């Protein structure tokens, strides 16, 4: 049919201009096609989904769409196409629902319906952001969400993996203590002992990788955060080397268990209410009775 031929010719021209052809380019390429026929052809191409319509300043541009990229099935209507396009642009960081609404100018209920539709068709997915747990970002189904959204190695399905962190903490501490014990066996003098018991992040990284307890890949920065938590636990100390990096070594606490907490008063939750009279007194204290027997 004539329309078909025209749309093919238009498509050819548009494909020829990779940046996108304006109306003027089409007029130049097809001088003897009337505006009406051209319009019909363009509409047909748009409906087929082989070209897309963009706006640059005041002008309209038609760009050929890469057939591989457009995974949208043919029976999706226009709104869905628009929204799909917007989400596609979000890349692997995803796009927030409010931003979709702004760009597409659709209202909330309609947008929600379309999003649900696309989700059931398994074209897009919602990913919960780790920073704000209520915020959902949408991205294409087969894309891997970016680290800033998922939180990196410590998050599994947007849940903070506390046990994983604890296990790593224990293992790092054990490694530091092992290094220290080995250094003590050498008996070379105190400064040598101190030097030998220090570990760099690289050594710890190698140890943990060899252990193979982590399903997720951990890099050195991750391990640095774990080692910092060991320092914060008071079991290790962090020494700065002349080149700016840090080494870690296991240390003992300088004090034995404090005297105050060997009594129930040290850990009593109502110590502030305790006095000579009233309900909370040392004479009737239940914690003390338990402790004394």
């Amino acid at each position, binding site marked *: 049919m004539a329309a078909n031929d025209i749309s093919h010719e238009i498509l050819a021209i548009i494909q020829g201009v990779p940046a996108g052809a304006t109306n003027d380019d089409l007029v130049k390429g097809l001088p003897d096609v009337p505006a009406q026929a051209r319009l019909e052809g363009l509409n047909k191409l748009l409906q087929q989904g082989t070209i897309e319509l963009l706006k640059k300043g005041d002008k309209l541009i038609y760009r050929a769409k890469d057939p591989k990229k457009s995974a949208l099935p043919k029976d999706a209507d226009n709104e869905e196409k628009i929204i799909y396009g917007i989400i596609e642009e979000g890349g692997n960081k995803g796009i927030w629902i409010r931003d979709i609404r702004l760009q597409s100018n659709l209202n909330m209920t309609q947008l929600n319906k379309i999003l649900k539709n696309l989700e059931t068709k398994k074209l897009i997915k919602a990913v919960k952001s780790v920073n704000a747990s209520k915020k959902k970002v949408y991205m294409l189904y087969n894309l891997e969400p970016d680290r800033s959204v998922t939180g990196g190695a*410590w998050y599994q399905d947007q849940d*903070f993996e*506390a046990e994983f*962190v604890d296990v790593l*903490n224990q293992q790092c501490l054990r490694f530091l203590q092992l290094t220290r014990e080995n250094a003590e066996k050498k008996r070379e*003098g*105190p*400064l040598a002992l*101190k030097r030998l018991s220090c570990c760099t992040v690289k050594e710890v990284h190698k140890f943990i990788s060899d252990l193979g307890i982590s399903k997720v890949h951990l890099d050195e920065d991750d391990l640095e*955060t*774990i080692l*910092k*938590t060991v320092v*914060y*636990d*008071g079991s290790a*100390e962090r020494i700065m080397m002349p080149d700016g990096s840090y080494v870690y070594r296991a*240390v*003992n*606490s*300088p*004090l*034995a*268990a*404090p*005297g*105050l*907490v*060997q*009594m129930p*008063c*040290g*850990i009593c939750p109502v*110590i502030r209410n*305790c006095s*000579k009279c009233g309900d909370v*007194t*040392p*004479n009737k*204290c239940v914690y*003390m009775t338990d*402790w*004394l*027997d």
Partner: protein
Amino acid sequence: MSIEYANLCSVVVKQVFGETVQIVADCLFCAVSRTLPAILKKTNLSRKEVSTALAVLIKYQLVVFAPCATNPFLAEYSLKREEIFYILRYPSYVQLIHSKYGPVGAAIAEELLHTGPQTATNVLLKCIANSEIKEKIETYRENFLAMVSDNYLIRLPQLISAEEDPVPKLQTDAYQYFAPPDINLHFISEVQAGKEKVEKAADAGIYWHANFSRFHQDFRDTVMIGAIERKLGTSASECFKYILKQMYERTDPWQKDCSNPFTFAEIKQTIEKKSNNLDLIKHLDQYVSLIADDPLRFIRKIGEMGGGQYVVDLNHAFEELTLSWFGSVITERYGSKASRIFRIIHMKKYIEQEELQKEAMIPAREAKLLSYYLFQDQFIQIKTIRKAGGGGTGPAKAFFLFHFKPRQSVRMILNICYKALYNTIERSNFEKSEHKRLIEKSQKLDSIVATMKERGESAEYIEEILETLTPPEREILEKVKTRIKTLSKAELTIDDSIFLLQMYLHHSKVETSLTTKDKK
């Protein structure tokens, strides 16, 4: 001085001296100083009772008097609040002397502490009369003089006023504090034989008393050396012991900030002369630099003179020890995650809630919960920074930063320690009064059995008397005894904590009106 401290002192005075003295002491505690008529009016006791009570307190050096500013014929009495607390430490002092001078020294110390200040001759006489240790009088005298020369005993101010002065004046010259007394052994043996009177001794009027600040100095040294030992090993702790000895040669022990400098060469000389530790001598410079570089910051290098000039930094030392103490207490109270949060807040100085959660690698909800628990119990404080209300739109934004104020938290937890100590004493008294009948009965039985044994009664008869204390009663008695023992042990351990915190408050940099007086 807080109310917990006041309660504690009151209960201690009652335990040691009785109720009347307690009433007078309470009256004096809440005032800077009071005259006798004022005390009489407040306590409604008779004049005789109040005078006796005051005399007891003055004898044990818990009250000092001075002429009233407005009326020189009247004396004003003021209570030495810190000294009351030292009564609780008497067993530790005796223990310290025992470890240094043996049982003879311990007997002398115990005598002085329990009967109050006395002349040297008096002390020795009493010791010999009381003790089961059959030592010669010369040993006693040697020990006494050794304790004086090591500054464990100090001379009390002597009476210098004339008879007409209404209020007696006491004074000692500083260089006389540790001048050894003239103890005449011949005279003592004559007194024992009954031929002479004690009052005519050559050193009558020179009263000796335990020098608490010297004991505290030793306790402080033990704490620091123990810390080094736990962290860096025994050789390092020995090295530090010699460093401290060197420090005392040049520095006042209670100097606040850091000691006067000493050089590596001096340490080396002392250690080579006195130490047997080969490892230490071989690696001495390494050990010194190890202690200097350690994050505990006990000593600090300040120059290169004499192979390296160092100062002992007491300020930092006790700050680090107190922090580690806090960490342990928080771990026991709230768990190890909470102590992690505490250390982060201390290291980062000021930190927000979200950053805290990220640094600590603790689930957000748990981190929030624990940090708010710590804030509620005043271990950490919150500083708010408010931004001016955003251009009229919306509420004023505020940032909440956690931070750690050491002095504030230390005072808070010191009060809790005082309260805990008060609770042990109260509970101990309660247990005793609950089972008073039983305890009295057993004591009576014991005394009867003792007299019977002296008279040589038959074993069967003794058995029969012992049977009057039935097994259930015996069980209860045993339980009460163990309870009281646990409570006394707890008293001693809490005192260790209190000592550390008091040392921190003394040595930390900010001066307040309470710390300018030399309390020790």
